[in-house]
């Protein structure tokens, strides 16, 4: 069992943490250095947590549980205009990030209005590459009801947020509905607003658990963090990628931020200690996001083994 945690502390001696994680058999998912501070997002074996806690105390750092670590969540706004951004969409995205998720903001091309709102095939496919999605809608109950077709075709769990209280049965295609978010023209700072953000995190957590439960019925051939480790070792160019997160983890695979045309063969050829290549246990395909590589690990029922 791996625990997702976030370490915040000084840059000085933080390599002791990364070395310890390596020794314990955990994974370093993300490292963000901001001037003299460093934020490490990690997966640590549950039974070894006290060791890490002791080291954190020694380094005077902070260790927090990051329940959404290792997932990618989309935050979708009807457009990128001032009406929907920066509040509250950025608040939602930032809050997801603080809880360890990689959040991507997506502004729809034609998501506005009640009668003319639409989603196209590209947007649907792009959103479906994530583990869960948060749709930020407005303050009119009528509009929230009529915009259902925007997310009806999505295959991942959809968290709908909006202003008014709505009945769950009125939104059958949404995984959950979170009220009291809606359209606001100021930053979320009141206790009630922050509370609504916490509700979104909780709802996303439940959505991810439902995906995990689905996956556990037919487990993946290997875990995404393990693939990440070998790709980092055997395709070293990925460490030179300028993206803040060169390899983004999903629950059922990962996104490698290298051009597909140049690197997909190298990624498919990555070999595990057991002798199998990534191409044999996963689908390596072009991502809808830029020209990145999308890896989807095949379930045990298709490969017949676990590595």
């Amino acid at each position: 069992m791996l625990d997702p945690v976030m370490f915040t502390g000084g840059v000085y001696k933080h390599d002791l943490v990364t070395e310890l994680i390596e020794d314990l058999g955990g994974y370093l998912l993300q490292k963000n250095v901001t001037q003299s501070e460093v934020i490490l997002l990690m997966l640590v074996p549950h039974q070894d947590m006290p060791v890490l806690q002791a080291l954190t105390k020694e380094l005077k750092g902070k260790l927090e549980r990051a329940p959404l670590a290792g997932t990618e969540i989309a935050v979708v706004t009807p457009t990128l205009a001032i009406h929907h951004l920066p509040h509250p969409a950025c608040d939602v995205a930032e809050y997801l990030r603080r809880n360890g998720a990689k959040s991507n903001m997506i502004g729809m091309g034609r998501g506005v209005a009640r009668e003319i709102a639409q989603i196209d095939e590209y947007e649907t496919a792009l959103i479906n590459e994530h583990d869960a999605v948060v749709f930020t809608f407005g303050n009119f109950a009528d509009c929230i009801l009529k915009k259902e077709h925007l997310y009806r075709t999505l295959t991942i769990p959809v968290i709908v947020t909006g202003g008014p209280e709505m009945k769950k049965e009125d939104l059958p295609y949404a995984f959950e509905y979170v009220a009291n978010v809606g359209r606001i023209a100021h930053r979320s700072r009141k206790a009630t607003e922050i509370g609504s953000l916490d509700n979104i995190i909780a709802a996303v957590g439940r959505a991810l658990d439902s995906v995990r439960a689905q996956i556990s019925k037919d487990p993946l051939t290997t875990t995404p963090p393990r693939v990440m480790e070998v790709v980092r070792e055997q395709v070293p160019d990925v460490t030179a990628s300028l993206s803040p997160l060169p390899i983004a983890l999903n629950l059922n695979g990962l996104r490698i931020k290298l051009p597909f045309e140049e690197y997909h063969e190298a990624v498919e050829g990555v070999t595990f200690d057991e002798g199998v290549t990534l191409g044999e246990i996963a689908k390596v395909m072009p991502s809808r996001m830029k020209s990145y590589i999308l890896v989807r690990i095949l379930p045990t029922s298709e490969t017949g083994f676990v590595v």
Partner: protein
Amino acid sequence: MEMDPLEVFEIQMPGEDYGADKYREIIMDILQDLGLIRSIGRLYVYVNIDTPYFAVLGMIRGKQPPLRVRDVGDLVPTEGGYQITVEDEEHMASLIRVLWGAFGREKVEQPDRNVLVVLSDRSPEELVVADLETEFRRDLMDALVRIAPEGFRNRRNEMGKDGFFFLAAEETITPELIAEAKEKIGGMQNA
């Protein structure tokens, strides 16, 4: 007509009570951001979500006089001209542009960041630097476009001397729609 800042502010959205409360907040936030609250006396908002349309009627408090050179800086006569010392740099760019226009570029010097010297025996005191009234109306238009829900892309705007009427709708705006919106807002005014 004497009015207090935002002495009347009414919103009606039949069937959308939550929306009405929230839009009150949004409108206050946006007017505050753009510094318009003090210039608006009365505001009536009516939204019909079935049609749908978004209508605003507002009364403007008083008229703002144009900003002249004497309002933006200290003017002192010097040798061969006038020196203007500007405290607030907000209007510096338009001030220089106006002086250039009136005296020509070669007659205007800027020895220091906040000091301008005009080489002329004619005083620049009365030159108009900024037309605050036009600026206010432009900001007001910007605020209304920001306030109306984004999907309401067909807009109509009537700016009068001491008031304005704004209508935004999803479908084409017809004379009947305008008449309906005005009637609803008239009802709010008389209530």
